[in-house]
């Protein structure tokens, strides 16, 4: 399985994301934002956390329109997998590949701490490695993670089982306690918490491993 990890100016979790994919057994290719095509045979695109383009205009707004953006959108539309974490989630929303938007945290503070998440669906490659209703510990690190969408969109996401993770205790004001959502075909996941920062005991939690393992499992023949 080949994962393409995108680096934008200001990305700072790109290496961590690459290491997480490598540890899970993926072949990783690093891709620069000015590239216009993804490496041949890319199965998964990883959009890392950070502060792409200094968060100018809106978080993720400029990255979403960067040269590699068109190739990422085409990959998603063709049924390819995309994982966007933190700033990567903001980019996916700005690209319109997922619905809704992320506002400034309700408490206005930058939040950097481990949180407890509920696995809200196991019906996706990303969440298939968890037990339904499992609680996992994954860190958050964001200023703009307050997920918002109109009531109809939130109800649709919940009704279609497209909420991947919810916060056990809502830290940022997100509608429906939503921490991560899936696309209609369940192959694009955007989430604020950082599973790549919970890969081994030394990180304080290894609960992120199952996400990468599950995703890679989707590419094992048979």
């Amino acid at each position, binding site marked *: 399985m080949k994962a393409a990890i995108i680096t934008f100016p200001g990305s700072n979790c790109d290496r961590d994301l690459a290491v997480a994919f490598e540890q899970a057994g993926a072949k990783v290719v690093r891709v620069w934002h000015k590239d216009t095509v993804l490496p041949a045979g890319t199965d998964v695109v990883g959009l890392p956390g950070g502060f792409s383009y200094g968060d100018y205009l809106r978080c993720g707004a400029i990255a979403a329109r960067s040269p590699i953006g068109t190739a990422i959108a085409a990959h998603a539309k063709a049924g390819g997998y995309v994982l966007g974490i933190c700033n990567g989630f903001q980019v996916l929303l700005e690209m319109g590949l997922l619905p809704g*938007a992320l*506002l400034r945290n309700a408490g*206005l503070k930058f939040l950097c701490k481990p949180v407890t998440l509920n696995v809200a669906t196991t019906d996706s490659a990303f969440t298939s490695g968890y037990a339904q209703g499992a609680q996992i510990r994954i860190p958050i690190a964001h200023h703009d993670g307050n997920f*918002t969408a109109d009531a109809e969109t939130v109800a649709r996401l919940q009704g279609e089982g497209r909420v991947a993770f919810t916060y056990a205790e809502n830290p940022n004001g997100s509608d429906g306690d939503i921490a991560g959502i899936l696309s209609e075909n369940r192959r694009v996941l955007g989430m604020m918490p950082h599973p790549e920062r919970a890969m081994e005991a030394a990180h304080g939690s290894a609960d992120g491993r199952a996400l990468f393992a599950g995703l890679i499992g989707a590419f094992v023949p048979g």
Partner: protein
Amino acid sequence: MKMRVIVTLKPGVLDPQGEAVRHALGSLGFEGVNKVRQGKLIELDLAETDPARAEEQARAMCEKLLANTVIESYALEPLEG
């Protein structure tokens, strides 16, 4: 010609920053501030000289980049000079 773009959060979208500013105004003794909504002001200097076409261009820029129409609305004002 020059065009001013004003981007604001749509009504009903919570504005935690505006709310913090409202509290700060209250603590400075400014009473009777019922609500504060914070937005962005962007000035464009366009090569286009025809006002209608300039507005059309600015509108396209708002739809594609300057505003996130999921949560924001925008208004355009042509500027003199």
